[in-house]
């Protein structure tokens, strides 16, 4: 379940008692509820599911994950195991 897609917050406003925002997914924009990410700032990335931001995306963690995975590549090359 849980189709959640990261998008950039480009607008924040309050609407009928709920914190709402406009999210840019890369040329396509849509409104989403930001009530669960009150700390969000313009320019932050959020994971949006069914028009609701379920969490912010940590850009540092994203980078750290990719760096760690790249290290596997280096290790494999050292061991001469790369088959790809």
């Amino acid at each position: 379940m849980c189709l959640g897609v990261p998008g950039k917050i480009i607008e924040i406003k309050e609407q009928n008692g709920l914190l709402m925002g406009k999210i840019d997914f890369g040329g396509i924009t849509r409104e989403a509820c930001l009530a669960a990410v009150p700390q969000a700032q313009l320019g932050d990335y959020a994971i949006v599911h069914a028009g609701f931001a379920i969490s912010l995306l940590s850009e540092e963690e994203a980078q750290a994950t990719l760096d760690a995975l790249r290290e596997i590549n280096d290790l494999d090359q050292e061991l001469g195991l790369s088959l790809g």
Partner: protein
Amino acid sequence: MNQNPPIPPIEGPLCPLPLRHDETIVLGHGSGGQMTHDLIQKVFLATLGRSCLPNGNDSASLALPTTPGRLAISTDSHIVTPLFFPGGDIGRLAVCGTVNDISMSGAQPLYLTAGFILEEGLPIQTLQRVLLSMQTAAAQAGVQFVAGDTKVVEHGKADGLFINTTGFGWIPEGRTIGGEHAQPGDVILLSGPIGDHGIAVLAARGELGFEAEVESDVAPLNHLIAAALQAAPHIHVLRDPTRGGLATTLCEIALQSQVGIWLDEDRIPIRPTVRAAAEMLGFDPLYIANEGKVILIVPADEADAALTTLRAHSYGQLAERIGEVRRDPPGRTLLRTTIGGTRVLDMLAGEMLPRIC
């Protein structure tokens, strides 16, 4: 004795004033009487202009080309909502859809008919906009309207406007292009990025609440195809991936030709915005409708020439080689995924629905 001047022939009371722009279609416009006549003269014929060959009779009579060949005929009805969307409208769709269908057999499209079902309450200005768009598309394609019809239905029975177009074209002798002619070893070309039309219309409908910088790709492809056929005279298959998208269309061809179609996910062009929209809603771009794209399945030795020609044309600048035809597995379509897996593609089952899962 008084000589009265000769009385000119009169058909009936003539209204000298043009139809007002704030007028709407009413049931009387479909009754076949004076109102229908005025609508045809002052709106249909006046707007379709030089794209039209009216002669006032019940049917058109046309000479077919004298070069040896066969007649190609295709018909299509158009019911899109909303009537106007970024990049096009129902009129453009009606013309291009049929022009393209005719072109897929390698025929040169020549003539179109257009039948209209108008909903009571449709603003005449809207009708004029649609007709103008049809005139522009027809002129672009180089085809002419030779017959038409219009009816009016009660409010609530027609979503504004339905259009049927039937096209006539001429296939030069010796040309056999069709879904059953794909052969192992053939190369599969695609004239440009997929998914534009479906996403543009969905955005315009507003039900899913998103905005996208996407325009429908609706366009007449007959000139592009004619150029490709010049460069690659032995093209085996031409088909436009409309409803059901690229995947469904290729599945049909694989079945018709009983060959295996293999695609490279990484080679299939998709605009980043379309991809983003599809991701967000949970759609697969391979199944989204296109109205200005063509799949060409060509013998390997003509593939480069065809691709170069496509890319030199305004409607084919982003053309790509997306796969190849093999003997096996017969009747199936497969995709080599970006990470190196293989996935079987099926036809679209029913309506494509946005998902949360």
